[in-house]
């Protein structure tokens, strides 16, 4: 079996499939998404297994490398750690997460130092989207096997999949240091820089992928935007002209061009491109979502709401559309509608902070203090660094007459906000969600 990265490099067309997935019809898109997500997980597991091997060995040559020390010489009637590991691995491949989890824990009962068991438990929890547990397991695996880059790649992916692009940067950087040819780590790191508005670094990291990715419209778009922001005019122009060249007059191309204008707050130009995209394919995924963002930016709330509704009609399972629709409703003081949409967004993505905050503000306005506090508790769980939670909670408590608790919350807010000021945060920049761009390369 070849190693993950080399397999990845030899088959760049898979990336195209992945990144173009957003522009296919919903059914196809879902299938592709599932397929590719599955491939990514398998890939990560394989990377993990292969890179765990001692230098000079390969998985095919020494499959027993995963055998634990405690496994040797055990009675035949009792499964050895090796057998348990293989059973767990097979279960994981077959998608039987419960069985896999059970077996890897049994491995750990025999050998508490099995990095492989911890790592694969991490994968189990990643698949279940139990991110905290995944991080704990992967962290233990990393401490036991610090040379294994695949573990760090998975740690980065855990952050990435939670849209915590800031935290994902360090593990991806680490992977790239040890495996400079890892296209996947490079692409992911580039995207993380991009979403953290570290434009110059995004360009530096993404540019070497030009040879493989210059037919990939999403890549060109991200590179072009980053280069524009970083004042790398030559790269900006190169990326955009290539984008125009390969995009021709396709709806996908106009969607990306519109999004580029949207990022530059050129709302009218963005809408003109979106209109061209709609002419070609009015059901293009994320088209109406982005149109909604443009109208939201123009504070044309009625039109924005209409666009988000159209996007929902095309793709009923995208949490961001409900979230934005709820936001528009809240801005128009249609709190009942906003509440419904925020709930729907959270049903699709329970980690959507803006929807939880939106609910909290509605409840606060209505004087439903306990509901507001409950929503804020959820936000804090999802996003412990979000200091605005403490401000809003302080306001609710203040209204409830709990002045001491309110004061404590305001103090926490101030302390966290001051710390965030040190990091600058995103205060001066816009925040355009780009769910279509966060898809992971394989």
């Amino acid at each position: 079996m070849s190693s993950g990265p080399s397999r990845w490099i030899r088959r760049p067309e898979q990336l195209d499939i992945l990144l173009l997935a957003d522009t296919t019809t919903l059914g196809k898109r879902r299938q592709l998404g599932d397929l590719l997500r599955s491939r990514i997980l398998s890939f990560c597991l394989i990377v993990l297994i292969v890179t765990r091997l001692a230098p000079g060995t390969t998985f095919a040559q020494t499959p027993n490398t995963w055998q634990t020390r405690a496994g040797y010489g055990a009675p035949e009637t009792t499964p050895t750690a090796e057998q348990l590991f293989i059973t767990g691995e097979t279960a994981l491949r077959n998608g039987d997460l419960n069985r896999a989890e059970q077996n890897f824990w049994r491995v750990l009962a025999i050998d508490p130092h099995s990095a492989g068991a911890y790592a694969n438990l991490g994968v189990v929890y990643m698949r279940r989207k139990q991110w905290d547990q995944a991080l704990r397991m992967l962290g233990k695996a990393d401490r036991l096997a610090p040379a294994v880059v695949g573990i760090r790649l998975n740690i980065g992916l855990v952050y990435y999949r939670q849209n915590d692009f800031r935290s994902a940067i360090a593990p991806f950087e680490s992977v790239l240091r040890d495996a400079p040819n890892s296209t996947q780590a490079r692409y992911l790191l580039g995207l993380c820089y991009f979403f953290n508005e570290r434009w110059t670094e995004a360009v530096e990291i993404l540019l070497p992928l030009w040879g493989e990715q210059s037919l990939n419209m999403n890549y060109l778009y991200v590179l072009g935007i980053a280069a524009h922001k970083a004042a790398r005019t030559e790269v900006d122009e190169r990326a955009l002209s290539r984008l125009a060249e390969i995009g021709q007059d396709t709806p996908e191309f106009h969607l990306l061009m519109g999004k580029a204008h949207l990022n530059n707050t050129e709302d009218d130009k963005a809408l003109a491109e979106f209109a061209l995209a709609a002419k070609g394919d009015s059901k293009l995924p994320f088209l109406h979502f982005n149109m909604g963002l443009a109208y939201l930016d123009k504070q044309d709330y009625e039109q924005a709401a209409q666009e988000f509704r159209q996007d929902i009609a095309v793709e009923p399972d995208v949490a961001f559309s409900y979230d934005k629709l709820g936001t528009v409703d809240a801005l128009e003081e249609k709190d009942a509608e906003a509440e419904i949409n925020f709930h729907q967004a959270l049903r699709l993505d329970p980690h959507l902070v803006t929807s939880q905050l939106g609910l909290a503000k509605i409840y606060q306005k209505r004087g439903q203090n306990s509901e507001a506090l409950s929503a804020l508790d959820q936000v804090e769980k999802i996003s412990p660094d979000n200091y605005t939670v403490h401000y809003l909670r302080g306001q609710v408590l203040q209204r409830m007459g709990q002045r001491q608790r309110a004061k404590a919350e305001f103090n926490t807010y101030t302390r966290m906000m001051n710390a965030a000021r040190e990091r600058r945060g995103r205060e001066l920049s816009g925040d355009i969600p780009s769910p279509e761009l966060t898809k992971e390369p394989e």
Partner: protein
Amino acid sequence: MCKSTLVALGFLLIVPVLGQKTPPHPAVPHFEDMAAQAGLSVAHISSPEKRYIVESMSGGVGLIDCDNDGKLDILTVNGSTVDRYRENGGDLMITLYHQDARLKFTDITKQAGLTRKGWGMGIAVADYDNDGLPDIYVTGYGGNALYRNLGNCKFEDVTEKAGVAGGAFSTGAAWADYDRDGYVDLFVSRYVHVDMSKLPAPGSDAKFCRYRGLLVQCGPWGMAGESDLLFHNRGDGTFEEVSKKAGVDDPDHYYGLGAVWGDYDNDGWPDLYVANDAGPNFLYHNRRDGTFEEEGLVQGIAVGVDGMQQGSMGVDWGDYDHDGRLDMMVTNFVNQSDTLYRNLGRQGFVDVTGTSHIAKTTYPYVGWGTAFSDMDNSGWLDIFVANGHVYPQVDSLPGEAHYRQPMLLFRNRRDGTFEEVSAAAGLTAMPLASRRGAAFGDISNDGCLDIVVLNVGEPPSLLLNHCQNGNHRVLFKLVGTQSNRLGIGARVTVNSGKLVQFSEVRSGGSYLSQNDLRLHFGLGAEAKMSVVAIAWPSGKTDTLHDIPADFIYTILEGKGIRDKSRISPLVDSEVPK
């Protein structure tokens, strides 16, 4: 009548009138920039590139009647550049234009003795020694100045003697008698720490010196902030710096800009609001014992609706909805909208920016000077905002708001919302500029509020308000006896017809600027005021009955009307050509 009784009476009298049937809106007032014709010709000094943050923040303007001749004179800060500051210690901090005849001004800066050099930022006027002559305080980078008025617009620089030089990068200044001892005290906000010998080069830091990919001046992010100052007036011509003791020193060193006093909780004691750039704003509640408690977060007036800090610049208090409580207008950085906070009383403040319809229009601009001001004499406060970006480099960005930006006027629709009428008011037809401070007052004494605006690197604008629409109006000049002489902090409540409105005499506000110390009220169709109540900082109240409109009244504390002059519209021959 004691102050508390008056306050209670005020609550009885002042009831929400939103939504009640009101007369139709008068025609939108029309503004004309008369600066050149009126003789306001001195260009503000500023480098075109704005390579350093200190080159972007100046500055304010002010209105003062420096010789008590009944006509407002005009102050503008002059700014400077890094090169000029390094070579010559900067420039004259301010220019004083004397209004010789109606709308005819002469630059008398040097004759007036206003010759301190530095880097002027802001202006606040008060009579700190209660001699009946308005004095001038000027903030600046590297040191501030206090000019004592000797009469006839001659001034003496008493900065060092008074102990109010301040230093560092001072910006906002606002006077008020916070301990009600009869002498006005002085608050000074300060911005960032700038070392002229170690200025960070534009673009030198990837995080703090970039804006949308452009290499721009560094800061304020990434720079250390400065503490704020409070100078307590000892009554003998000197001051003691008491900010720490009073609890207004800003230990977190946020980037302080606009500051304004106002009694937001109607307890008769002046409270203080401070705008911080890229940080939470402060609301200092006066504890009546010489100290303050910071309540911005508690009262819901420190940050945006989501708890996000904003880049706040200019500030003003005003009761735009006639509910008897002061509301707050704050101007902010680009893509943040200016913020309107409605005062709910015991429930604190609520951000009504969105529902009041000012969000959309203000969102793309960097807002600075602002005021609640009744521009059409309808009896309802409108909102004016001066705008301008800090980075000239943004002109190279497609789709971005430009460096030079329009001024905005929002007319009060009397239902809690505002309507943008800038075009009808003639503001959008004026040349774009990067503007900063704005001062509001009846410069032509015709009963319409005019505006002076600082244009960065250019002479100021004098926006003459042609508002003659048949509406009645009145101005009050207050003279304290037990209270400070200019009546700073006094609250005047006017009943006319069904409308009850109030305003306070304030020193400092807007963006680093000084408005007319006389209080202006539009009265709509009402030709007289049934009750005028003046609550003085001393605790005394004066109540007047059945006062005719269309006069400028001078009211002496405890004595009532001392003088009055009829408001006369401008005639063509008086308008400078």
